[in-house]
């Protein structure tokens, strides 16, 4: 298990619920314990990604706003 | 002759009873109560569903398929005329000749249109793909029924076949696809309720 993300994704320009849809698809491509990093521009992710990790049981490692326009988040596959 | 006539009436009674059973069965099922605030008018919606909403110009589908629509209408007029003719068979001798003559032509035309529908079901790719054996059987049975009824009206030799075919047709109504005649009323009523409540129909600029 490493701390560097296995996948880095670009969700810029995608509107809700596409970031959640994409991350849900992507999580299947990594092993349990691996990380996915993504950046999005839709502020909806600030609520939707934590909600998604809570309801699916995956771990939200980081979620932050960058330069006022983009949002970066890191998710760890738990199961 | 009387025995065949009785047979036809027995078939009619069986068919009606079967339809009643279907009706009762469907009515036994739950009827959802819609509590959302009404936007339009439910009774106007139902009235529309059974009147203007049935007109050929009311729907895009019937505007495109006007011939098929008219064929269907002619066929169904034939069916109801045939049922009426058989029911009224005890009174045929009092029919004015003009009535018998007109009726027989309505029936022949209906049978012709029925046969056209039956052939379309076989020939047309989409319809063939959609049709069940039940559909093919039902359209030809009904067509035959209308045809022999028309023939029976003008030639006594066809009266017995008319009663026989009539008995079979009537009995088959609740069993196969012909029972859509009952569900037509349910369906249009629900249609009218739904679109009436939501203020879609009747609407001067209705959505089609």
């Amino acid at each position, binding site marked *: 298990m490493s701390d560097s993300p296995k996948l880095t994704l670009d969700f810029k*320009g*995608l*509107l809700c*619920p596409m970031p*959640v*849809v994409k991350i849900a*698809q992507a999580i299947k491509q990594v092993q349990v314990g691996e990380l996915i990093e993504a950046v999005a*521009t*839709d*502020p909806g992710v*600030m*609520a*939707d990604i*934590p*909600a*998604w990790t809570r*309801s*699916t049981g995956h771990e939200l490692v980081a979620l932050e706003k960058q330069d*006022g326009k983009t949002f970066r988040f890191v998710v760890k596959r738990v199961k | 002759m009387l025995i065949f006539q009785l047979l036809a009436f027995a078939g009619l009674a069986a068919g009606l009873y079967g339809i009643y059973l279907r009706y009762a069965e*469907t*009515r036994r*099922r739950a*009827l*959802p*109560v*819609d*509590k*959302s*605030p009404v*936007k339009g008018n439910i009774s106007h919606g139902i009235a529309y569903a059974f009147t203007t909403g049935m007109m050929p110009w009311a*729907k*895009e589908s*019937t*505007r495109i398929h006007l011939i098929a*629509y008219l064929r*269907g209408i002619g066929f169904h007029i034939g069916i109801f005329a045939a049922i009426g003719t058989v029911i009224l068979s005890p009174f045929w001798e009092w029919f004015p000749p003009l009535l018998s003559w007109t009726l027989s032509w309505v029936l022949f035309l209906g049978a012709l249109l029925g046969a056209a529908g039956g052939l379309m079901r076989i020939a*047309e790719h*989409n*319809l063939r*793909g*959609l049709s069940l054996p*039940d*559909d093919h059987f039902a359209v030809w049975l009904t067509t035959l029924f209308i045809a022999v009824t028309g023939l029976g009206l003008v030639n006594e030799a066809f009266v017995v076949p008319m009663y026989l075919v009539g008995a079979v047709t009537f009995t088959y109504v609740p069993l*196969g696809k012909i*029972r*859509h005649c*009952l*569900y*037509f009323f*349910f*369906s*249009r009523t*629900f*249609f009218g309720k*739904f679109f009436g409540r939501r*203020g*879609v129909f009747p*609407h001067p600029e209705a*959505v*089609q």
Partner: protein
Amino acid sequence: MTETIELALKALEAQLNQPLETALEACARCGICAEACHYYRAEPRVEHIPAHRAEQLRSVYRYEHDFLSRMFPVWTRAEKLDETTLANLTEIAFSQCTLCRRCTVNCPLGVDTPLMMRAIRAMATAAGTAPEILVMLADAAIEKGNDPSFYKEMFLEQIADMEKQLREITGDENAGIPVEKQGAKILYVPLAGAHTILPPAVVFNAAKEDWTLSIFEASNYGVFLADVNRARQVAKRIVDEANRLGVKEIVISECGHAYACYRWDVPNWFAGRFDFKVRSLIEVLAEYIAEGKIKVDPTGIPESVTYHDSCNLARNGGLLEEPRYVLKNIVGDFREMTPNKAGALSLRRRRRDRCARRICRTKNRRRQTQGGPNQKHRCAGGRCCVRELPPADRRPERALQLERPCYRTDGSGRPRDAAAQTPARGGGGASFRRGTGWNSKDLGRV
């Protein structure tokens, strides 16, 4: 019988009420509904005839319920439900029908095909074969309702950012986006993302409306799943919010399915706890214009614009005049679609259709002279509608552009030429000015 099949059949039985049985029984298989369906229009195959779709469920229903079918299954193609059939049904109901009800309207018997497709969706959800992503989205939405605290702070932060933009746009230092305002008249429920918050905020402020923004989003994936249980839980968030704040009215963003959910379904799920008036934003806009609460520039959009109705707003909701009224007030050249060579006898009648999106016919000339990028038609909700457009209009050189109704902003929610915006005129009226629009680049991302 496996458990999956058992669950699916149980779900079918549970739903079998009068309207559903009627839909299952009434079809005469006349095939006249074929052209009504945009799937068939796009790909004229037997499988895309609405009745064919419905037949797949009927064969299962007949096997369970019809006397003749049980005796002679071949006679009516009755089939016992198995895994393959269930997978096929799931695919049909989720991927090949948008529940637009166009077939119903065009059927001589008024057969409610979408009702059957909904029944299949519920069967699939019960059996666990429904698209996982919809379940996931619904569950995430429910999670937000269970404990909004985990995102509320971030949400409020974003709203504060948007408020800044709002002030920039309107030039009004007092313009605001109230959240959780007790006793507000209107609870406005957006979709997630700025594009459905900022533009309405401009309007609400201009109209001096007493409103508050919902902390939840209007979409309800439980409805897509035909899963009343999940759908209720998703809706409950807003029902509770409205009750807590004591609002009078709930206004739903332009989303058709969300409007249908709150206008027509929620009152049935929360009888006694939900006596709010529910309106679409389009209705509110029309009212503001009619009452002079906002002033709009009637020539604000110089191009010819036509309107393609949304199934959920129009055919399933009766909202026909309002969007046209709004458009006629902001568009210099509003035209209803007229008959053309596409083959339908009257396109005038076909014009009112799916997806509440404006179709903006920007002329070739404009594209050439302005050197704009290739315009695409794109629709935020469903893209199905575009397939239905007459082939001539699908050609890219016709430069057909679908736009959001009534207000146009770029992805950030900020009007493209915000600097050129005149501040509110005539007592704070919002102006729907030329150029405050989605440009096609933004559309490509929707």
